[in-house]
């Protein structure tokens, strides 16, 4: 493929989905206007945009609050998840003993644990973060553990022949080899952290200083302020996309030089 073809491919990746979005929004706007759908049922995209601008102080404050919870949870999930994976990778016994509990944590719906966490943890912000950590940590643990175990057996033999210590094998072979797996987990966890934060806010129904987007959605629903509900939804979706893109950029920065997943394809 020529360089020109590659650039055209890149453009296509941006232009094609954007065109779909514009068409859908235009159709939505047209339907709402033509059939005079009331704003408390389905607001038009333009009305949502106007609400986004007029309620910007309230909404962006809420966005900052929710993003703060999600980011704190993501950082904690990464640190704790990688630490757990490093422990799991040291011995099959530890992994076999503890991994089922990590799965248990993953398969129990967060809505059912969140009320307990909110009762147990006095500080509300910490409770929200903890809920989001519970949701986000599993892919970090499982992917990183898999990565640490997937070192090339030939290289493992080579390290053994050279008399490498366990620490040298971990640090020089297993950790770099686990990076692609870790970043795969991070990409999933970044979306889950936001979901966890929003769900926890719904359960907590918290107002006041830590009022996040979920609370604004709840409140707007009760007040039948549907345009504000849509505006808050738009912000949550945008935050999710931003988190996903940021973790993708991080993976690219770390792996672009050597790993197949980030190498340019020429076919």
């Amino acid at each position: 493929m020529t360089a020109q073809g590659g650039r055209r491919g890149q453009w296509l990746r941006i232009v094609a989905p954007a065109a779909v979005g514009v068409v859908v929004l235009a159709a939505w706007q047209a339907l709402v206007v033509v059939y005079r759908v009331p704003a408390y049922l389905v607001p038009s995209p333009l009305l949502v945009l106007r609400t986004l601008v007029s309620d910007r102080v309230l909404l962006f404050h809420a966005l900052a609050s929710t993003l703060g919870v999600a980011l704190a949870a993501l950082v904690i999930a990464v640190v704790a998840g990688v630490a757990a994976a490093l422990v799991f990778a040291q011995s099959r016994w530890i992994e076999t003993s503890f991994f089922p509990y990590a799965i248990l944590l993953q398969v129990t719906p967060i809505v059912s644990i969140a009320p307990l966490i909110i009762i147990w943890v006095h500080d509300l912000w910490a409770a929200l973060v903890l809920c989001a950590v519970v949701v986000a940590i599993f892919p970090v643990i499982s992917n990183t553990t898999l990565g640490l175990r997937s070192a090339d057996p030939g290289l493992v033999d080579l390290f053994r022949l050279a008399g490498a210590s366990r620490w040298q094998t971990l640090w020089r072979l297993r950790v770099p080899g686990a990076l692609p797996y870790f970043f795969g987990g991070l990409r999933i966890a970044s979306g889950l952290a936001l979901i966890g934060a929003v769900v926890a806010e719904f359960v907590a129904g918290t107002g006041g200083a830590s009022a996040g987007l979920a609370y604004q959605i709840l409140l707007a629903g009760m007040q039948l302020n549907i345009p504000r509900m849509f505006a808050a939804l738009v912000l949550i979706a945008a935050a999710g996309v931003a988190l996903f893109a940021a973790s993708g950029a991080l993976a690219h920065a770390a792996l672009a030089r050597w790993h197949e997943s980030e190498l340019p394809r020429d076919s």
Partner: protein
Amino acid sequence: MTGFVAGPAVIELSGIAKTWPNGTRALAGIDLAVRRGEFLTLVGPSGCGKSTLLKLIAGLTHATAGRIATSEGRPRIGFVFQSPTLMPWARVDTNVRLPLDLARMPRARADARVADALALVNLAASAGSLPRELSGGMQMRASIARALAAEPDLLLMDEPFGALDEFARERLDGELLALWSAQRFTVVFVTHSIQEAVFLSTRVVAMAARPGRIVDTWEIDEPWPRSAAFRLSPAFAAHAQRLSLRVAEAGGGEPGGAVAQ
């Protein structure tokens, strides 16, 4: 120079047997001494246990029975696998320096050794490249440089050129032989190619499967250096035929006797 005189044994195996947990006899009754400075090749069909034998010599796996004796302490082992097994995230020179780093050799001394090793395999210009930027043959040469950098007492090579095409393999065989002629390290080389075995070796070991055993051992007492012309000589053909016959004779040896109960 002509002929070849081997030194004392670097490692001596007597009565070695290896049985897998499922009862398969991978190796039985192996007696073999590897002498300093020789280029010893293990040849045989797949399943004859030649790779297992190499791993036993390396200490990567243990024998079920028999004794392995070394002359002066544990020999330093260099191992070259069938695939290059380079760390894909590390530059070629970092890969070659790996065994030295693991042995905590001072940086300056290690760097000098790495430069020498890369020069030996004609990869000096690629020191800063990543493995994926090299061809398969070049990756294999980097793998050999890594093994040589540690200045091993014993270089073990497990079908190192088996995954390459015929042209690359013959070229690398020639390069390896030139390197060995100059440096005279001790090599145990595993291959299933009769041509490769005769071309490279000072001594060949013909092996058979079920159970894995040695059927014949003899010197390839032909002059050095060996060039492409050697491949066309009557002597080469005679050795190749003997090797081929030995392996074939033994191949039909114990039909159905694969698994010991």
